[in-house]
């Protein structure tokens, strides 16, 4: 009998997705679909808007990562109009990007992912959530809340709002950080570094406990899409880097993205399937997000993060295809984020009022802005008319880069689970909490 398994909706997910697995009467997995069930057409309804208003609209694409959706279109318009921003604005943007990276990664680790590890994969769904984790592990729960709070408050301080910020403007930033606010955050940053170290310890313990799972379930070779600046991990600017399944790295200027990144429209998902054009579809399906960034980087930008990367590579090699290693990679990026935050808070430019150039004039043309959002590469390609009205927008959103890759790894894992019965022999630890 053909069996159809539906997961509706996939929970603890930013966005809307269902999962469909079809198993044939011979027990073989016939089809796996990851159905993204909503889209809102931002690409269209920004047409006719002021280009400088686009960054005040697009943060609503993602409430967990609105900062990149504010900064990136601003960069795209600056590229289209040929605007250079002052150094203090550049650093303020890097600071707010890292603050977001930090809080988003911690939210992901503790609120979205940790319930699976801490309660185990077979726990009661009613309990498998962060609320239960906070109740059962109050110390860890409070630490996690304080970490998210720090990152979100810093985003709010610079961005005006932590969810859907407003302080970036074509030409720079509307306001520097106030000195007393800077001092307040600086006082807390060492404690946050300690929290991050504790979180890494928890993460490493989880990896050790679940090593059998990490090493054997969902190990799927794909291409990877990341961003590097001179080979170094960077979330604010740089080149697009493609890593082949064998580990070969190729860099491209972001303006040439159309030569590199192709989009296939599947019949079963509103989020499209991205792939590496030179390799074709489906062979060129790639993954983005933390593991891809870690696979792409020659090295990390900060010392503690570099140590963490080395430890990671010693264990899993130069290129990791381990889907479960995404969580570990996320923690390496978290370390870099908090180190960057400290360095930037100590930089006097953060409170320098020279953060907006007055030399901004609209012109006809198009521009590309790229950053690395917490869940993957984010690209805005915007067309401006001579008066600076938005004519057109092409948008490659972070999560979108992962859809085809997620489906591919789901197919792989479904075969392991339903055909090979791989779960039966797995070595699983006792749950940390019940």
């Amino acid at each position, binding site marked *: 009998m053909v069996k159809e398994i539906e997961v509706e909706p996939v929970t*603890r997910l930013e966005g809307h997705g269902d999962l469909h697995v079809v198993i044939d009467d011979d027990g073989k997995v016939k089809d796996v679909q990851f159905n993204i069930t909503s889209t809102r057409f931002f690409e269209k309804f920004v047409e*006719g808007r*002021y280009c400088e208003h686009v960054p005040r609209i697009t943060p609503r694409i*993602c409430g967990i990562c609105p900062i990149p959706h504010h900064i990136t279109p601003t960069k795209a318009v600056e590229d289209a109009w040929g605007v250079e921003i002052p150094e203090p604005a550049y650093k303020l943007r890097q600071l707010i990007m890292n603050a977001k990276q930090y809080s988003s990664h911690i939210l992901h680790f503790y609120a979205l992912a940790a319930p699976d590890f801490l309660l185990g994969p077979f726990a009661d*769904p009613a309990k498998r959530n962060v609320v239960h984790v906070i*109740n059962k592990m109050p110390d860890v729960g409070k630490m996690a809340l304080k970490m998210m709070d720090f990152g979100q408050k810093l985003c709010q301080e610079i961005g005006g709002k932590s969810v859907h910020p407003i302080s970036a403007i074509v030409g720079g930033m509307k306001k520097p950080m106030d000195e007393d606010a800077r001092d307040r955050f600086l006082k807390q940053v060492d404690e946050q570094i300690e929290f991050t170290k504790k979180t890494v310890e928890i993460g490493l313990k989880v990896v050790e406990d679940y090593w059998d799972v990490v090493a054997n379930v969902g190990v799927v070779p794909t291409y990877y899409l990341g961003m590097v600046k001179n080979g170094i991990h960077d979330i604010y600017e740089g080149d697009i880097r493609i890593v082949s399944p064998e580990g070969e790295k190729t860099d491209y200027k972001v303006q040439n993205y159309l030569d590199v990144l192709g989009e296939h*429209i599947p*019949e079963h998902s509103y989020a499209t399937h991205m792939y590496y054009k030179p390799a074709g579809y489906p062979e060129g399906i790639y993954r983005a997000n933390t593991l891809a960034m870690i696979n792409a980087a020659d090295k990390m930008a900060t010392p503690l993060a570099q140590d963490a990367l080395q430890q990671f590579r010693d264990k899993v090699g130069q290129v990791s295809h381990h889907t479960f290693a995404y969580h570990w990679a996320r923690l390496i990026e978290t370390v870099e984020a908090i180190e960057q935050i400290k360095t930037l808070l100590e930089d006097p430019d953060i409170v320098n009022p020279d953060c907006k150039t007055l030399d*901004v004039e609209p012109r006809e043309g198009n521009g590309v802005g790229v950053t690395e959002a917490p869940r993957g590469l984010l690209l805005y390609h915007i067309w401006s008319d001579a008066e600076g009205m938005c004519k057109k927008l092409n948008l490659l959103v972070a999560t979108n880069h992962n859809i085809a890759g997620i489906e591919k790894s789901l197919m792989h894992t479904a075969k392991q689970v339903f055909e090979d019965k791989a779960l039966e022999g797995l070595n699983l630890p006792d749950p940390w909490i019940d």
Partner: protein
Amino acid sequence: MAVKVAFMQLSDCWGCHQSLLNAHLGLLDILPALEFVYWPAVVDYKLDSLKARQDGEILVGFIEGSVRTNEDYESVELMRKKCQLIISFGSCACYGNVHGLANEWKKQELVDRKFHDAESITDENPKEPTKHVPGFREYMVVVDDIINVDAYISGCPPKPEQIVSAVQFLLGQKDFPNEEYSFCTQCPLNEEGCILDKGTLCFGPITSVGCSLKCPGNEDPCVGCFGPSKTAHVRADKLIEKTNDLSNLTSGEKKAMYEFLSLYLNIPLMAGFDLSADILKQIKNKGEAETPLTQLNDKAKQVATNLLEYLKNNLDFHEISNVCDTCPRIIGSNSTMTKVKRDYEGLPNQEECFIEQGYICMGPVTRAGCGGMCIKVNAPCTGCYGQTEWVADQASRFADIAIKGFNVALSKDELLAQVKDHIGTFEKFTLAKNKQFTEEVHK
């Protein structure tokens, strides 16, 4: 026993949930009182489990997001069946948010741009996905076009404290320290420079001590956020006298009263939280509200009675309050709008009103609640908390209000002609509520 709560996510961004989580340690106060029976963002219950629940089994249902797909529409109807009280949570559910801008186009034009014309698409003949996906509505509507809504929490996103206080209100749960002495006894302005002595509204005499005294430090009045004290300060008589006649409040005083009603009396007028029916009707009919506060001293009771009496005759008080009422910038400044500036032009100073400096700021036509967060980082308001009044031509309404109340040296026609994108400027968050516009485009 914990109260059953469900969150429904329509087409959205997750930001309202992020904002709720942003309450961070504040969550610890409310979580034990709630049982989340559906909340895909955080909890693992699937849709089938919600469908399987009895009708009306869930006390409070939060509907968040906008109605773009057929599934969104059906989910709204499902929630109404399962929940006793429905809250439109966030500006998407209340007004459609920026996604409502899509109503400028026919559905096919939206679909073509996304699934056919995008520059990065490589398929030879790409088509709109149709398998295991719900399909799109022709145009967007808002939640209360589909079902009756009991309360609204607007904001994009609503502020965390707004959400937490709304939940506490609904649960009738609010913990105040209720200390013996009033705020005045520790106020740094007690000896010299008392705000009330100067004739300005301040709720210190009936509010409990215990806070960090940040407000008087900034020469702002106490708005009562620590709740009632057991005894009143002698200045309470002055406060009572002041509240005997509330007809001539300054905008700062209006803001203080707003916050007091919400924070101290727990009446959900502030911060974009409207309990649309019950409580306002209660106030209108009886002149009093059933608040969880039972421990008011006599003086505080007198103040509360005065405010409620005022509210009874001014039920639209919360609607007429706008972002300008919470904005510290000078109106009637040395600057005058002689030309409409684009946001990238120059850099506004941080003291004077944006409109008077030449920028379009939606403050005067946007409902209060945010506390002016954008303004604090030198960015004009774009209206995410919603319009203070619903009319077909918001551009015209804005121009009338701006010219009447601010230094503007442009005629209405000149002002409107200099704004090239009327819809994106004046109805960025609310177009889905503009039925006349939608009907014209989609007839």
